[in-house]
């Protein structure tokens, strides 16, 4: 089977949507790669600033590895459920199934964000504010940016759900969901970089 673009391919029986997807998702994937450079540089900044704690609190005091583990599992699971939503769309298993899997993914993403927010607040409590040091500035520039991406993806999912309510699962919804899926999986990949470099790298 030939794949026409990154992410799940709808296959020829989806006709125009599959054709449109080739160009649209290639374009979106290029955008993701550009975004990857952005994250890569912020990670490099973080690595350069690991020692720049300037007398402020460091990784050992601030990072809660248990919470990070739960967040990672939440995000990975949401990638699975997002994949299941897309499979339901590809194999035309009915709108209900797509919506259910999407809502599960949204819930998992929301739980991830809630936990992340909780971590941020407890860091602030411990004096881990961005103004405290170069190290913390680099942390706060990188990790919340990923969270912001996740939140935007959630907002986008709500917009697509709105489109589904309006038009049903039409070509626009299909290519939209394929792109959203690519973003979702891409954010997982970025998270792998973040937990390895920021948390494991910081605590090691």
């Amino acid at each position, binding site marked *: 089977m030939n794949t026409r673009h990154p992410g799940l391919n709808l296959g020829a029986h989806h006709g125009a949507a599959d054709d449109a997807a080739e160009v649209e998702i290639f374009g979106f994937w290029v955008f993701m790669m550009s975004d*990857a450079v952005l994250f*890569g540089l912020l990670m*490099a900044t973080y690595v350069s600033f690991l020692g720049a704690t300037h007398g402020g609190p460091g990784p050992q005091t601030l990072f809660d590895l248990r919470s990070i583990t739960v967040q990672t599992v939440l995000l990975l699971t949401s990638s*699975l459920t997002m994949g299941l939503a897309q499979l339901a769309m590809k194999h035309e298993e009915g709108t209900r199934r797509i919506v259910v899997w999407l809502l599960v993914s949204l819930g998992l993403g929301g739980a991830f964000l809630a936990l992340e927010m909780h971590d941020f607040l407890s860091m602030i409590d411990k004096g881990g504010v961005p103004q405290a040091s170069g190290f913390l500035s680099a942390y706060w520039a990188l990790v919340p940016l990923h969270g912001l991406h996740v939140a935007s993806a959630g907002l986008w999912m709500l917009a697509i759900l709105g489109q589904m309510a309006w038009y049903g699962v039409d070509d626009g919804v299909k290519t939209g969901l394929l792109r959203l899926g690519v973003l979702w999986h891409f954010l997982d990949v970025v998270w792998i970089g973040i*937990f390895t470099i920021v948390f494991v790298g910081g605590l090691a």
Partner: protein
Amino acid sequence: MSVKKERRSYLIGYVLALILTLPVLGLTASGALPRGTLLWVAGVAAVVQIAVHFRFFLHIRLKGQTREDLHLILFTTLILALMGGGTIWIMADLAARM
């Protein structure tokens, strides 16, 4: 490909991702490994896990994939290595001389 097969592929990816993540986090928490070793283990696990995500979730394959997708990923990897590696090198060099 049938729905079942595809669904199983996602599940395999998910399980592999967990296998590559949780032990690394456990090792970090336990502090059983020296810093250098742990960083190597974590780095290799991360690279493999990214490959897993590309393979099972983003469906990127070495064969049958449109050529430009592969070009793009390889080029991005090159750029990330140049920019990220270069930044770390330069900043470390400067720090060492300060």
